[in-house]
């Protein structure tokens, strides 16, 4: 039984697990890692109750490959991990992107690099989420900032992965995974569930011939389609084809199917931005002290606002282009030494001042730290 509509008190890890089940996830493969083990534990208990299967694999590579296999078998599938495991998954994320396999990877970011601080927060995997595998490809990455958003965005992650046949990365962080908050679970009528497109007819079906939305229908196994799936460059038949022209059109389509749907994919929350001339840009749990800092700054007559990125990849270039003329200074607060700030600078160019307020990991920015820089820069 998936969750009944109502109000619950969940941790971020629990909210992701329950939302996944509600979205239709029926297979989870994972490897224990701090700080996301509770997610796997809940899936191990809950999946059999809804007719699904949990498997603990021998490593993270096995985990992600198992969910890719299960997705081709027709199940919605997810894995969850943290930095070291996410690093191991990168090759397979490229494989899923190349083969257009819908999967959801929850990466609960902790402080890195390497083993770093396993039980403490970090946001250092932003660039890896986009560029971690070799070759030119696009994925989608979502970043929740509350337990309710962990829930809502997990459902959205499944929907986007099915709609665009692409790996979707839920970029969580340790603070959210262990934070308990109230979660409202919507009723069946309010719930939007998207499933992958199926081929309309078998005759003349080409497994990698895309529709107008650049997404090809995904054939089910065992129904005589006799399709071939490969990580090699392939033509519309799915056959390996070592030809620069085939590569050109395949790679363009794999990227453009995301790039041309940015408006559908990107979600941004703003807070007090209507009259703002200085803005904090934050994502994940850093959004929370940022809201507080904005409120405190308003009490001091500073016209500050918050831009909370709910979608990190594809990056909302257009949003920043449009808003850059109204804002003098953007302060990018992130728990790393400068990742999203590069994207903001790229999107804005020299139209406004862009500053980085970094944290190296282990702790969130405090509201006071954020207020300090707002007061300094507002002068």
């Amino acid at each position, binding site marked *: 039984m998936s969750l009944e509509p109502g*109000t*619950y*008190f969940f941790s971020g890890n629990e909210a992701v697990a329950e939302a996944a089940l509600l979205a239709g996830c029926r297979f989870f493969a994972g490897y224990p890692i*701090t*700080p996301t083990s509770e997610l796997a534990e809940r899936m191990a208990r809950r999946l059999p109750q809804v007719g699904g299967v949990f498997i603990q694999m021998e490593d993270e590579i096995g985990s992600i490959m198992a969910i890719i296999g299960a997705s081709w078998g027709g199940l919605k599938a997810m894995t969850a991990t943290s930095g070291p495991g996410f690093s191991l998954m990168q090759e397979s994320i490229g494989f899923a992107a190349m083969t257009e396999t819908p999967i959801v990877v929850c990466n609960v970011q902790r402080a890195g690099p390497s083993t770093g601080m*396993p*039980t403490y927060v970090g946001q250092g995997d932003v660039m890896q989420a986009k560029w971690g595998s070799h070759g030119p490809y696009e994925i989608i990455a979502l970043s929740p900032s*509350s337990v309710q958003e962990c829930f809502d965005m997990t459902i959205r992650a499944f929907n986007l992965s099915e709609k665009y046949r692409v790996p979707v990365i839920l970029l969580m962080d*340790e*603070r959210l995974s*262990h*934070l*308990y*908050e*109230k979660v409202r679970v919507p009723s069946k009528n309010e719930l939007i569930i998207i499933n992958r497109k199926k081929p309309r007819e078998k005759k003349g079906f080409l497994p990698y011939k895309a529709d107008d939305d650049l997404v090809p229908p995904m054939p089910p196994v065992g129904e005589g389609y006799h399709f071939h799936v490969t990580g090699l460059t392939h033509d519309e038949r799915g056959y390996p084809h070592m030809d620069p022209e085939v590569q050109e059109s395949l790679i363009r389509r794999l990227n453009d199917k995301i790039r041309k749907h940015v408006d559908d994919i990107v979600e941004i929350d703003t807070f007090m931005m209507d009259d703002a001339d200085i803005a904090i840009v934050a994502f994940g749990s850093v959004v*929370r*002290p940022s*809201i*507080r800092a904005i*409120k405190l700054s308003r009490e001091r007559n500073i016209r500050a606002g918050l831009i909370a990125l709910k979608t990190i990849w594809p990056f909302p270039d257009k949003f920043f282009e449009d808003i850059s003329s109204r804002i003098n200074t953007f302060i990018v607060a992130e728990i790393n030494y400068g990742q999203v700030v590069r994207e903001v600078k790229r999107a804005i160019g020299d139209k406004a001042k862009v500053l980085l307020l970094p944290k190296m990991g282990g702790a*969130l920015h405090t*509201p006071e730290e954020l207020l300090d820089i707002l007061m300094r820069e507002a002068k």
Partner: protein
Amino acid sequence: MENRVEIIICGFGGQGIVRAGYIIGYAAAISEDLESSFVPSYGPEARGGECASRIVIAREKIDYPFITTIDILITMSEPAYKKYVNYLKKGGIILYDEDLVELDDRARIASKTYGIPATRIAEELGNRIVANIVMLGFFTSVTGIITYEGMKRAVEVGVPARFREINLKAFDIGYSYGEKLKKERESEEPLRN
């Protein structure tokens, strides 16, 4: 209740500190329709180490779900008391297991302190593991943030079914202890200061 109350419940790992924190958070969010957030201490430590649950309860949506200063410190061990009393807000409240914690001068920052032999009461009930729930009953009574019914419902949800009965008993004893203490205090009140 003020618009935002920040609570820390702390002690040793194994005292049910995390469960108690969850139950308070659940009671506020679900039983009472307030807003709440709860962060358990999370580390490689298991039993015996220092352990703390952090809870924020508010009337409106919580912007910042983490502790800034402590309004209510609930402590079930001396080391935890010593660590967290420094973050207690002036005029805050301390609840403590009076057999396990000896308050020092720093407790003067509190407007009120309430002691209860929670662990001893739990042992008399037959299982020291329910000391946390004795403390929750006590907390419910002396702070009044969560109603008796609301917290009781949260206890029912928050403890394993096979231990429900003893936990509910523990909750009631803690609550009654608080009620009695409050009455005694009220009668003493004019004499203080």
